[in-house]
């Protein structure tokens, strides 16, 4: 019995404990550092509730009249930007995702090149992409669509590559053993395994894109953001409220739709 008691069990080695402590310490340092960097001005902070109350009274009631005249067409444009942008994304993200998946293309230079493109796409914010494309295509929905697509490729491609890397190798091996060419293996081995994930990712990205395309108008890339920008510039806070209510409603409806569709495809 005493022999058993002598044996000690610990979850972590001393080195691991040190490493964990270092991580916690780093987190605390990072938080303190961030708070000092953002330089909160106390006067503005004390004033905030009052300002907020003032803004809300100016916003209430939302200007319902503004919807049929300006918001509706802008909203439709926003949905078109989000949907077309997402479709463009899928076209570009599928090949990139496949090339980035290490189990499908077992050649690291290709994986790295694909990953680099995906990271490049993600590292730039939609608004920044929109600024670039407004410069290229001029203001309007085309710039917005391209911005949405450019930003989403990295997101969809990365998640698709991860889904592909998590597939079971057994069925793949079985198809290889049957002498199937690589196209058939992709189609009948990998695709059925990632199909639910793929549509899930695509729908989720569409959902995000509806929200993102709502603000692209702020930089002139079309959609409901243009209506929002106009209203803010002229201090029509009741119109701003109406735009925000509309965006909120659309996002809720999109969320319900996506959830329902996801349930069906899995």
């Amino acid at each position: 019995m005493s022999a058993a008691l002598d044996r000690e069990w610990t979850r972590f080695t001393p080195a691991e404990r040190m490493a964990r402590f270092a991580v916690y310490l780093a987190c605390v340092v990072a938080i303190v550092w961030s708070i000092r960097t953002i330089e909160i001005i106390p006067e503005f902070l004390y004033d905030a509730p009052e300002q907020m109350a003032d803004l809300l009274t100016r916003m209430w009631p939302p200007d319902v009249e503004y919807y049929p005249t300006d918001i509706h067409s802008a909203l439709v444009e926003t949905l078109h930007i989000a949907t077309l942008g997402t479709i463009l994304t899928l076209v570009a993200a599928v090949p990139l995702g496949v090339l980035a998946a290490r189990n499908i293309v077992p050649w690291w230079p290709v994986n790295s090149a694909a990953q680099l493109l995906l990271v490049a796409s993600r590292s730039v914010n939609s608004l920044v992409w929109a600024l670039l494309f407004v410069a290229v295509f001029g203001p309007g929905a085309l710039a917005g669509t391209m911005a949405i697509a450019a930003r989403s490729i990295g997101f969809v491609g990365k998640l698709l590559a991860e889904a592909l890397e998590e597939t079971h190798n057994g069925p793949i091996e079985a198809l290889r053993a049957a002498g199937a060419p690589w196209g058939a293996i992709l189609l009948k081995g990998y695709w059925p395994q990632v199909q639910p994930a793929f549509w899930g990712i695509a729908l989720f990205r569409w959902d995000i894109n509806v929200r993102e395309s709502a603000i692209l108008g702020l930089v002139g890339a079309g959609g409901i953001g243009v209506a929002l920008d106009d209203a803010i510039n002229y201090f029509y806070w009741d119109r701003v409220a109406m735009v925000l209510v509309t965006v909120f409603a659309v996002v809720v409806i999109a969320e319900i739709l996506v959830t329902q569709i996801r349930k069906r495809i899995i």
Partner: protein
Amino acid sequence: MTEATNAATPDRTLAVRGLVKEYVRGKPVLRGIDIAFAPRGMTAIIGPSGTGKSTLIRCINGLVRPTSGEIHFMGLDLAKLRGRDLRLARRRVGMVFQEYNLVERLTVMENALSGRLGYVPVWRAFLRKYPAEDVARAFELLDAVGLGDFAHRRADALSGGQRQRVGIARALMQNPDLLLADEPTSSLDPKTSVEIMELMDGLAAKAGIPVVVNIHNVELAKRFAVRVIGMTGGRVVFDGKPDALEPKHLSEIYGGESWLT
């Protein structure tokens, strides 16, 4: 490999010569295997886990590339084949897996038809327009394995035994000249195991093709195989008829004796 050569009864002798496989240089898993398999009937390979049985089977259809040695089958040295030639040769070798390796989200029918993917153009697979004779053959084989009514069921709705039946149907869809099976019964209950062995043995005999099966269950090996090969440490230490397999051989293959009583 034209249809004409298939029609005339081909020589389905499989000959493995001097086969060596090292996953890590200097640590061979297979240390020079020399076996000539008969052109029909079931050969069972028994031996402890990690002794290279699976590697041997996988070398035969090129899922594992041998380090050296020859694998002669149907006038080809399978060990030398690369790329497209290897792929075309694999179509002639069916394989049944321990974990069934079905595509879970596809139907039983599509899993069976995927045995034809080596023959069917990709666009046909994409449009699910498989040749009518393939579909007819798939129904025939699903009937033969007792799953005629399950064609439209998804593979993930099946039990282990049913999945393995689909696995057998898929392998035979290739119209193979050789059937390999890697621990086909290890995940199944005793009764289902016997049924699966009966199916493989019966259908292969009907097709007139040899079967090479890795198996842990010595009783099943003796019951179905016409020849048993015992491996240990990457070498063949027993090769003979099932009746000739005695406790002393088993002791040599698996080590120890107490488990034999």
